[in-house]
């Protein structure tokens, strides 16, 4: 009974929070609405006995919303909480597409004869996840780690305002008449400037 009530509260919060993201008229409120939606989804995931994944989702999303708020203030250059705005396009077509997507998914969910449950859950699910990661599923983590590292490198390269190609040219061969490496900097620096 309590489980059922909790599920419905989380479900309504998750979907209502998600809708509120694109209905409220300021970005700060949208960020909070998204955080509420994510925490509710994390709650449902914890109810599915995925304690570790659920807690990770909640912690990650709260931090992510905080970072998003910082980026919004940076990009918008104003107090986003005080500036109601409407920056949307093709709302009607998108609403039709989203509704159609939901209907197709909902019909599939109801019509599909889902198979019976097979196998049984381990006594300690978090421990079993750790053992899977460090044992039979280690290749998954070994694949994810270079992807995450590549993401760090790629995002730094993209976000860096003056990388070495900006300073030394496309072929990294910008030199002064003496043949020494000579970066094109707004303000020269280093020894002998």
């Amino acid at each position: 009974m309590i489980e059922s009530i909790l599920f419905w509260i989380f479900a309504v919060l998750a979907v209502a929070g998600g809708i509120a993201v694109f209905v409220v008229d300021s970005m700060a409120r949208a960020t909070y609405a998204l955080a509420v939606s994510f925490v509710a989804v994390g709650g449902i995931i914890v109810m599915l006995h995925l304690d570790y994944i659920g807690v990770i989702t909640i912690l990650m999303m709260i931090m992510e919303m905080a970072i998003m708020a910082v980026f919004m203030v940076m990009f918008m250059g104003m107090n986003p909480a005080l500036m109601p705005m409407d920056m949307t396009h093709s709302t009607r077509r998108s609403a039709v597409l989203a509704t159609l997507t939901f209907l197709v998914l909902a019909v599939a969910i109801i019509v599909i004869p889902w198979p019976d449950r097979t196998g049984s859950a381990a006594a300690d699910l978090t421990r079993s996840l750790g053992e899977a990661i460090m044992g039979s599923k280690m290749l998954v983590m070994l694949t994810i780690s270079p992807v995450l590292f590549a993401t760090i490198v790629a995002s730094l390269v993209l976000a860096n305002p003056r990388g070495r190609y900006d300073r030394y040219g496309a072929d990294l061969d910008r030199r002064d008449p003496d043949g020494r490496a000579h970066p094109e900097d707004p303000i020269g620096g280093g020894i002998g400037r």
Partner: protein
Amino acid sequence: MTLQLVLLVSAALFSVGLYGALTQQVVVMVMMGIELMINGVLLAGGALWWFLSPTPDGQTVLLVILAAMTVEMAMGFAVATVVHRSRGSDLSDSATDLAG
């Protein structure tokens, strides 16, 4: 709480996220829509795992989805930063061409 109910919630999250990703002009808001969609996928994965086959291996798929969410956010912010620096705005409509 049944499999169908949780999957319906995740389908609703996915559809709302799709609407947001398609309609929003601000890059950060587009990312919010994509986040909602991935969150729906994560929820559906968790439900399918618990109600159909709760073996330890299945949980690793959810970790992969979480990692995808992280990568999406990091690259999204990096691209938003580049667009903002080169175009002076963070609207997706101002970055519809590939050439700088």
